[in-house]
């Protein structure tokens, strides 16, 4: 169950999408999200989905992996679609007691499902094709103008890097602690919600203690490697924007315009 978390799971590759400048990729993802949210017809949404599919095919990410990233949001999809199907007023097709299904309900829920799936796929595509460290690097640079207003941009980026680095380590550790507590007879699967929440205490306490110990050791190791904050730091990977980056950004803006145009035409 814990292994399903896909945040920061980078899928190494050398596709066109992988090679794009991460700064551009973040902006393009932003444009895609704007596209999906501003579309108010199926055709408009379709344009956004086409843009997403083109990037997805170019990225050479296995379809299965993409499906995996959708798994955690299945409950949200079900919840919103059920709400939409049953509680929207309109032409009734089917009625059972106080529950009724309307044409509008079906339309809206289909629309929402496509939108949510496209949103998740779009952002997963960003994290699948960009190594977390490049991603934080790009965020650091995109935000660097904010240093002028004393925002600790480097420190924030460093925190993100370390958090991403330790996610798999802590997940592994949680699994280990859970097994250890189960071996001692801890029961985590039965009882009321409150009881189950209480049963988490013997997992969380050792996890926190070890996280603090890790933090201390990591700080020491960083100091030993001459870490002294963001000033005067150079980077192994330099970010270079090329023609392909501007082309991709241009393409995303063209698609965005198309969506807006369709909105006007349909509206």
């Amino acid at each position, binding site marked *: 169950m814990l292994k399903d978390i896909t945040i920061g799971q980078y899928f190494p590759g050398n596709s066109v999408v992988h090679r794009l400048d991460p700064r551009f990729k973040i902006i393009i993802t932003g444009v895609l999200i704007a596209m999906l949210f501003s579309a108010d017809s199926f055709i408009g949404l379709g344009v956004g989905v086409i843009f997403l599919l083109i990037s997805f095919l170019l990225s050479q990410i296995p379809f299965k992996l993409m499906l995996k990233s959708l798994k955690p949001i299945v409950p949200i999809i079900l919840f919103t679609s059920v709400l939409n199907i049953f509680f929207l007023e309109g032409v009734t097709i089917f009625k059972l007691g106080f529950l009724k299904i309307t044409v509008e309900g079906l339309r809206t829920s289909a629309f929402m499902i496509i939108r949510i799936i496209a949103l998740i796929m779009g952002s997963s595509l960003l994290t699948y094709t960009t190594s977390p460290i490049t991603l934080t690097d790009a965020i650091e640079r995109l935000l660097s103008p904010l240093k002028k207003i004393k925002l600790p941009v480097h420190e924030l980026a460093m925190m993100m890097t370390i958090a991403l*680095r330790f996610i798999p380590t802590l997940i592994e550790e949680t699994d280990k602690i859970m097994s250890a507590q189960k071996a001692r007879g801890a029961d985590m699967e039965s009882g009321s919600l409150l009881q189950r929440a209480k049963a988490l205490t013997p997992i969380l306490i050792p996890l926190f203690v070890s996280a603090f110990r890790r933090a201390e050791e990591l700080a020491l190791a960083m100091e030993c*490697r001459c870490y002294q904050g963001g000033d005067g*730091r150079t*980077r192994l990977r330099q970010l270079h924007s090329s023609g392909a980056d501007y082309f991709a950004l241009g393409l995303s803006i063209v698609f965005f315009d198309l969506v807006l145009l369709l909105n006007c035409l349909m509206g």
Partner: protein
Amino acid sequence: MQDKIISAQNVEFHYTNEFEEDAPVKQVLKGVSLDIKKGEFTAVLGHNGSGKSTIAKHMNAVLLPCGGKVYVEGIDTADEERIFDIRQRVGMVFQNPDNQIVATIVEEDVAFALENLGVPPDEMRKRVDDALKSVGMYEYREHSPHQLSGGQKQRVAIAGIIAMRPDCIVLDEPTAMLDPKGRSEVLKTIRQLNRDFGVTIVLITHYMDEAAQADRIVVMDNGVILMDDVPREVFANVELMKKIGLDVPQVTELMYLLEESGLPTDTHIIDEEECTEALLKILKATPHN
């Protein structure tokens, strides 16, 4: 050329208890003097609480002595201005490989120290590749650390230090959390670095077989240096070693037991081949009946 890389002079250290002012002060180091020569492979042996990790942490100014002085290539470690000069010269590798890897990609982690030092990107690329090749992890440069085994992670951590091009590497029980395979990988890497690249090594350990491969062993107990000699001479003191809770290599122990039972042997033996020869000699000398 300066002969001594690290020179500890009469170092004393104790941890202060911040919560109880009149708590008894536990003296961890009681006047330790130790010189590490250039190119040497030194092992520091000791039981838990002997102060071996504490003296290691003095070698790159992680801890500062409460009494006495530590010099790294002539620089006083108490000189705060030059702390990064010191840490660049003496790198340190810790026990848990997971807790010293900062980045999510192997090569970026190796580059971490160089990024901190402001090395230009072209030179950084070269140094990172060299460091990864010297520990045999070059093929894994694009992997993420959690895909690696313990021994591989520890080698990446060593590469992260090597990339700084330090003169000396202090390893604080680098194999304590590894399986036998990982242990031998790491130890092989350490020996290679020492032999082929002339890096001075200080290996803190409690494994006798690791210490036996060093040029010199320093045995610590209860905050003082008990012995400081070549492995052969150190392990010959079987009784003293046992008294302070340390072991000797199995072959040495065998020789010791044979000697105790009255056979003419030599407890200066530390490797298997010598042991076989010695046993053959005994067998030949014993009349058959």
